[in-house]
């Protein structure tokens, strides 16, 4: 695994995917070593009066040949706005790789990835890594969104396995939320592992379903962070062994360890 480092990464491309999501590909000046799906970066936001701390983002992908890291960023506030507005060629100051990734499935296992919003980023990274490593794993992905316009990356998931979707307005896939989809509602025990990343209420609902049928489940939590590497102790979550830092003990947690 790669050690933590602080580097200036150059924006190789900045593509707007829909009204508020951007995909940034960042070129590293150092050789990238193995980065695990689920790990994250902490990006310094300069050129903004109202931000002081870095902003954490999950890693969407790593290209070890091009030596790039990709981030999937939703423009939600002053910090992310500066980043989605950063033009190609400019540099951003990034601390990476941080936290722990998802645990890998065993051979022949069936896994279900459940993502919502920009939570799909680490799940797609994971699916692609599993595919790239030629692991004999059956990948199923369930992506939920409000409307069909908000559904992203279905084709990318399709290249790794089966894809399902839900929309709250019924404009694509099953109408409702991810927990209304048969994959989660009726067929969950057919999976060996479930991995989820997205809004916390969604992950809690997924975790409850998984717990009910005793299926292995990992979720990737989001939290307000200051340092990102376990020294400020600000981003804690309640676990069965007390307060743990989302940044260093997570962001990926087994639901058995969470007090949900």
């Amino acid at each position, binding site marked *: 695994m790669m050690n933590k*480092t602080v580097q200036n990464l150059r924006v190789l491309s900045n593509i707007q995917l829909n009204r508020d999501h951007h995909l940034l590909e960042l070129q590293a000046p150092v050789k990238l070593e193995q980065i695990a799906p689920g790990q994250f970066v902490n990006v310094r936001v300069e050129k903004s009066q109202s931000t*002081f701390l*870095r902003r954490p983002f999950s890693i969407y992908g790593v290209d070890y040949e091009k030596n790039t890291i990709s981030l999937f960023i939703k423009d939600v506030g002053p910090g992310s706005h500066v980043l989605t507005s950063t033009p190609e060629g400019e540099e951003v100051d990034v601390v990476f790789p941080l936290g722990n990734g998802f645990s890998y499935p065993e051979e022949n296992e069936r896994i279900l990835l459940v993502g919502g919003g920009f939570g799909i980023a680490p799940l797609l990274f994971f699916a692609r890594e599993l595919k790239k490593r030629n692991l004999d794993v059956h990948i199923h992905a369930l992506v939920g969104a409000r409307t069909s316009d908000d559904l992203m990356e279905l084709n990318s998931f399709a290249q790794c396995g089966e894809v399902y979707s839900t929309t709250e307005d019924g404009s694509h896939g099953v109408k409702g939320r991810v927990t209304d989809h048969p994959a989660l509602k009726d067929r969950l025990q057919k999976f060996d592992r479930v991995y989820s990343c997205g809004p916390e209420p969604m992950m809690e609902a997924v975790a409850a379903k998984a717990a009910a049928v005793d299926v292995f489940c990992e979720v990737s939590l989001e939290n307000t962070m200051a*340092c990102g590497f376990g020294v400020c102790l600000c981003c804690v979550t309640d676990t069965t062994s007390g307060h743990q830092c989302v940044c260093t003990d997570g962001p990926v947690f087994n639901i058995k360890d969470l007090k949900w």
Partner: protein
Amino acid sequence: MVDLGVKIGNLDLKNPVMTASGTFGYGLEFEDFFDLNRLGGFVVKGTTLHARQGNPYPRSAETPSGMLNAVGLQNRGVKYFAENIYPRLEKFQTNVLVNVSGSTVEEYVECAEVINELEHIPGIELNISCPNVKEGGMTFGTSCPSAEAVVRAVRKVYDKHLMVKLSPNVTSIEEIARAVENVGADSVSLINTLLAMAIDAESRKPLLSTITGGLSGPAVKPVALRMVWQVAQAVKIPIVGMGGIMNAADAVEFMLAGASAIQVGTAGFVDPLAPVKIVEGIEDYLKRHKIESVTDLVGSLQL
């Protein structure tokens, strides 16, 4: 060649840059970023006699030019520190201090006694200024009698360097500094965070679970500088200055105001390399100003 070495009482520091408790973990978390031996010293996180869970989430909030925290001294207790962390700190060729806190005078004393036995810990920083715990912490540091009581008691059992970390949440920080000097403190470090608050107007709720918390970062620097200056006029023991130091110029300002050394805290969250950049920056400053020894800066404010 410039001389970056400073003395704080009986502590020899290779340079005046330390890192602040609560912002540097046990130091080990920074090892990927830089060689900790490049620092004059570092202060490991607030340690108490018994393990503490700290405050509920949310514990931090970003504010203009700074942040609030309300961690509340989460730590695994001094016994865990001595048995599991200390052995990994012995290798460092720099001053590793432990920040000690408690709810009662007895707790401070017992905790200090355990640390007194650790050969490679040359000093403690007595935390009588944590604003985020209900009992103890800052309540000891906001009146002269209680500050004296805890420092006097710890002084009796602790033989090595006793640094006392002062709270800015007082009417006269000089009086508290004088009080702890009189009962045996070897140095004072200041300032701890300023008691503060942040509210989300939309939800009409406080941003911290504890409603109030401690403000740090560049926002507090002018207050910290003023307090270092005032304390420098009031005591003879060395002062370790901190509060919003982000770069070498900030560090130099604290030394000009009277600090013999400085601590870098919140800056390390924004740039983990800030502490070493500040060491390099101070060296450049001395060369540029043709000053041979960094000790010549201390209290040399031109009035």
